[in-house]
């Protein structure tokens, strides 16, 4: 069995990120970059599957040469080999999905396991677009994955609770936060990962063009909220809320 796991390089989710004064982008000085947390969960899940049964976990990242760091991290978690599609072109999620489709065609995995959303663009689109373009089922926001014979059963988070879906392989599964808790990678894992193979490709090699039809023109900082005040006790709080008229009748 082969599992393809796309991983994106994104700013550390716990860092304080700010917009550059001219709105041209985020201030990346002293910003650390990590694997997108949802993708890390996907790598962890794929590696756990490969520990239970014969399976190869192939990780792929699209972006600048620095994405190798995130591929190395994924290899340290236990993925077997990496693919770096090197480009500095801007891509929207459809553009990403088109590149992933080429990688899918070359690799013919049994399924694709990926993050539900990249925490920088917060789009939540690439997995669904990839599944659509491949004409295969999708099971998004997975909280639990069970592999059956030739099919897979996913318990997924919905607006009102959860539902369980079953679809034949191949398919695309996107991860939600509660699927698993990624392992801490100790030093030997990181050292071992240095010798695992990473294949490099350009968009040209793959026969795909960079596409971006939703372009970011400028970033704005969020509007600040007006300063609040402290109340000393519950009575004072109730009084303040009454005065604001938010307590109803």
């Amino acid at each position: 069995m082969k599992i393809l796991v796309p991983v994106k390089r994104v700013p550390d989710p716990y860092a304080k990120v700010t917009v550059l004064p001219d709105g041209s982008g985020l201030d990346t000085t002293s910003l650390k970059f990590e694997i997108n947390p949802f993708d890390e969960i996907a790598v962890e899940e794929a590696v756990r599957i490969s520990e239970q049964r014969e399976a190869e976990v192939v990780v792929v990242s699209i972006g600048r040469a620095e994405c190798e760091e995130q591929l190395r991290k994924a290899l340290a978690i236990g993925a077997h080999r990496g693919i770096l599609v090197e480009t500095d072109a801007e891509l929207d999620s459809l553009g990403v999905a088109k590149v992933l489709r080429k990688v899918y065609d070359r690799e013919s995995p049994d399924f694709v396991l990926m993050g539900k959303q990249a925490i920088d663009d917060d789009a939540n689109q690439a997995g669904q677009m990839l599944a659509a373009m491949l004409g295969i089922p999708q099971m998004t926001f997975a909280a639990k994955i069970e592999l059956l014979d030739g099919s897979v059963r996913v318990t997924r988070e919905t607006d009102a609770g959860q539902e369980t879906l079953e679809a034949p392989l191949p398919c695309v599964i996107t991860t939600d936060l509660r699927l698993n808790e990624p392992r801490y990678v100790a030093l030997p894992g990181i050292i071992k990962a240095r010798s695992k193979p990473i294949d490099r490709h350009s968009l040209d090699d793959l026969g795909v063009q960079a596409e971006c039809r939703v372009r970011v023109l400028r970033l704005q900082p969020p509007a600040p909220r007006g300063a609040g005040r402290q109340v000393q006790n519950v009575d004072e709080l109730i009084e303040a809320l009454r005065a604001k008229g938010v307590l109803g009748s």
Partner: protein
Amino acid sequence: MTRALAISLNAGDAEPLAAFCQALGVPFVLLAAGGDAPVDVGAEKIVRLEGDIPPADALSAFIAEMADGFDLIVGVAHMAGKDLLPRIAGLLGQSMVGDIVEVLSASERRFLRPVVAGNAFAEVEVANGPFVASVRATAFKSAARGGNAAVETQPAPSQGSTKRVSVSEAEGGRPDLTQARVVVSGGRPLKDAETFERLIGGLADVLGGAAGATRAAVDSGIAPNDLQVGQTGKVVAPELYVAAGVSGSTQHVAGMKDSKVIVAINTDPDAPIFEIADFGLVMDLFDAIPQLIERLRD
């Protein structure tokens, strides 16, 4: 943009979809696939799907079939919309603008959307040609009312290769989190499901509101997943948001910052939640909430 297909998947979707189409100034057909479709929000026509709504593969194929003649397909950015809309875009080979909070220019096709957990807002421009969009319901609250759209019904498509095995939805009883006038949210210190329900649920009930939670509370089994508010959960903007035992992480704040009045109850005076609260109470929630319930009950 000349004509939109607006897809209503959940109760309460029609209003923000109509408000968005009105802001763009485009006529729209409202497709009710599980959601509401009032006849008086200005739709040209309403198409109501009857029967069980299938998973995204079959539903997206059905909608892609009817996409001819529309240069915009739009839905609400909740989980059902996030599952379905990008798949429709993928089938049609179109790009998608998600989580729109403002129309900057309809003629120039420029929109505003939050990125990096609301730490920034991106002004985006969509290239010419048909596209797919989703809107934040919190940003398009009310549509002009009027008209009396004709309603056509069609059977919902049957399931494709993805089968629904089971559904487990929490019992209602409280207003829907995304529509409630008041939301009371609890975090990690709530200990267990019973305590969460008694304190957070109890205060929500006396305020006629909904209960919400942080990811930490959901992950530790204190609250069900559909209560998670934040970057990767639900986005809410009620009249009153009470955050008790919530530190105020960027990811949580991304889902509630646009609430009208924010109250924070936290034992740590330096908790970041106080930076965005209108009223901050430095107090143990195990004292504060029972008192609030008691005083507000009468």
